[in-house]
C-alpha cells in the first residue's frame, strides 16, 4: 500500500515538474510544482482507496493544492498560479475526454450504433465526468481568488511565515 502511494507520488512529481517546463515556470518554481503535484495526486489516490467518489476527491485534492500554493508562494517568491497550474494538470481527465471523443467518432457510423446502442449513454457519462473534473480543478486553482477577493496574496498569512 505505502509502496503504491510512493510510486504514485513520484510519477505525479515527474508530471508536475515536466508540465512546469512546458508552461515556462521559472526554475525555482519547478520543484514546488512537482512537490505540490505529487502531494495532490497521492492525496487523491488515498481518498479513492478509502472509497470516496472521483469528483469529490479531485475537488479536495485541488483545493488542498490551491491553499498550500498560497503558503508556498511566500517561500519561493512567485505568484501561486505559476506552480499550482502545473500541479493540478496531473489530475487532468484525459482518458474520459478521449473516450467521449472516440464515442462521437463512432456515433457517425450507423452500423456501429445499431450494434451497440449503449454508446450514447457512455458518451454522456464520460463528457459529464470530463467537465466536472475540469471545473473541480479550476475551483482548486482559483480558491485564493474566491476566498480573498481582490486582495493581494502578499497580505495573506496563514502562519507567521517570516
Amino acid at each position, binding site marked *: 500500500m505505502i509502496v503504491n502511494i510512493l510510486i504514485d507520488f513520484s510519477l505525479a512529481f515527474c508530471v508536475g515538474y515536466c*508540465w512546469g517546463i512546458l*508552461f515556462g*515556470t521559472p526554475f525555482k518554481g519547478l520543484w514546488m510544482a512537482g512537490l505540490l503535484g505529487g502531494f495532490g495526486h497521492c492525496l487523491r489516490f488515498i481518498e479513492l482507496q478509502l472509497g470516496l467518489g472521483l469528483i469529490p476527491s479531485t475537488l479536495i485534492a485541488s483545493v488542498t493544492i490551491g491553499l498550500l500554493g498560497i503558503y508556498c508562494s511566500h517561500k519561493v517568491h512567485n505568484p501561486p498560479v505559476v506552480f499550482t497550474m502545473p500541479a493540478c494538470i496531473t489530475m487532468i481527465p484525459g482518458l474520459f475526454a478521449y473516450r467521449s471523443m472516440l464515442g*462521437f*467518432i463512432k456515433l457517425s457510423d450507423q452500423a456501429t450504433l445499431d450494434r451497440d446502442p449503449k454508446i450514447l449513454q457512455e458518451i454522456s457519462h464520460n463528457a459529464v465526468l470530463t467537465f466536472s473534473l475540469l471545473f473541480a480543478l479550476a475551483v482548486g486553482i482559483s480558491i485564493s*481568488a474566491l476566498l480573498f477577493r481582490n486582495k493581494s496574496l502578499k497580505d495573506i498569512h496563514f502562519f507567521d511565515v517570516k
Partner: protein
Amino acid sequence: MVDLPENQNLEKEKINADEFADFLLDIGAFLMSSGAHCGRVWRNCKRIADHWGFHMNLNPTFTGMLVSVWDENDKENAVTRYKTAPTHSVHFEILTLISHLSWKISKGQMDFVESKKELEKIHRTKNYHYLIVALVVGISCACLCSIAGGDLVNCGTVLIAASIGSVIRSWILRLKINSFLSFIIASFVTTMIASLDTIFKLGTAPEIALATAVLYLIPGVPLINSVIDLLEGYLTAAIARSLFAASIITCIAVGMTLSIMLLGIGNF
C-alpha cells in the same frame, strides 16, 4: 489647503497620460498573452496606477485590452487607449517577473524611465529550448500513461509519440501559419505513432497509450483561466477563452479522427 497635495505631487515625477497608458497596455496585453487571468492583470495594473496617482479603468478581453487613465491632480491629463494582444503562448516566468516589477514600482524603488527599461528586458526573456520541452513532454505523458494503468511498453510508445509530435509542432509554428493547423498535424502524427500499440497488440493497455499521448496538446491554461474569469466576473474574456480552448480541442479531435479513420475504426 490646496497647496499641500500639490507640493507632494511636485516631489513625484510628472508622467504624461499617453505614455502611462501605453506602459499599462504593454504590461497588460503581455500578461494576458502569457497566460494570466484577468484578475491578475487588473491587480498588477492597479498597483502601478495607484503608485503614480492615476485613476484606472480596465477592460481586458481575450483579444486585446482597453484602458482609460486620468491623473488625480490634473483632469486634463487623461487618455483612453486600446491594444491588441500579441499571439498567445503560455510562459509563466513573465507573470513572476512582471509581478516583481509592479511590487518594485509600488514600493517606490523605480522611476518611470527605469521601469520602462526593465519591461524591455522582460520582453526579451527566453522560454525553455524546444528540444528540452519535447523531451520533457514525452516523459510527462509517459508518466501520465503509467498513472492511468499502462505498462512499460505503452509508456515507451507514448514517450516517443509525444516527443516527436511536440518537435513537429514547434517546427510548424516557425513557419508562421495558423496555429490551429499545428495542433491538427501534431495530434495526427502523435496518434499515428501511439496507435502502433493497438495495431500490433503491444502492451497491456493500448487504449490508454492512445488517450494519454495527446495530452500535451490539451489547452489546460485557457480552460482553467476561463473558469477563473467566469467566477471573477470577466464574462467576455471567459467566453473568448473557452471558445479558444474548445477550438483547440476540436483541432486535436480532428487530427485523431483522421488517423483513426486512416487505420480503420474497427481496430479501436
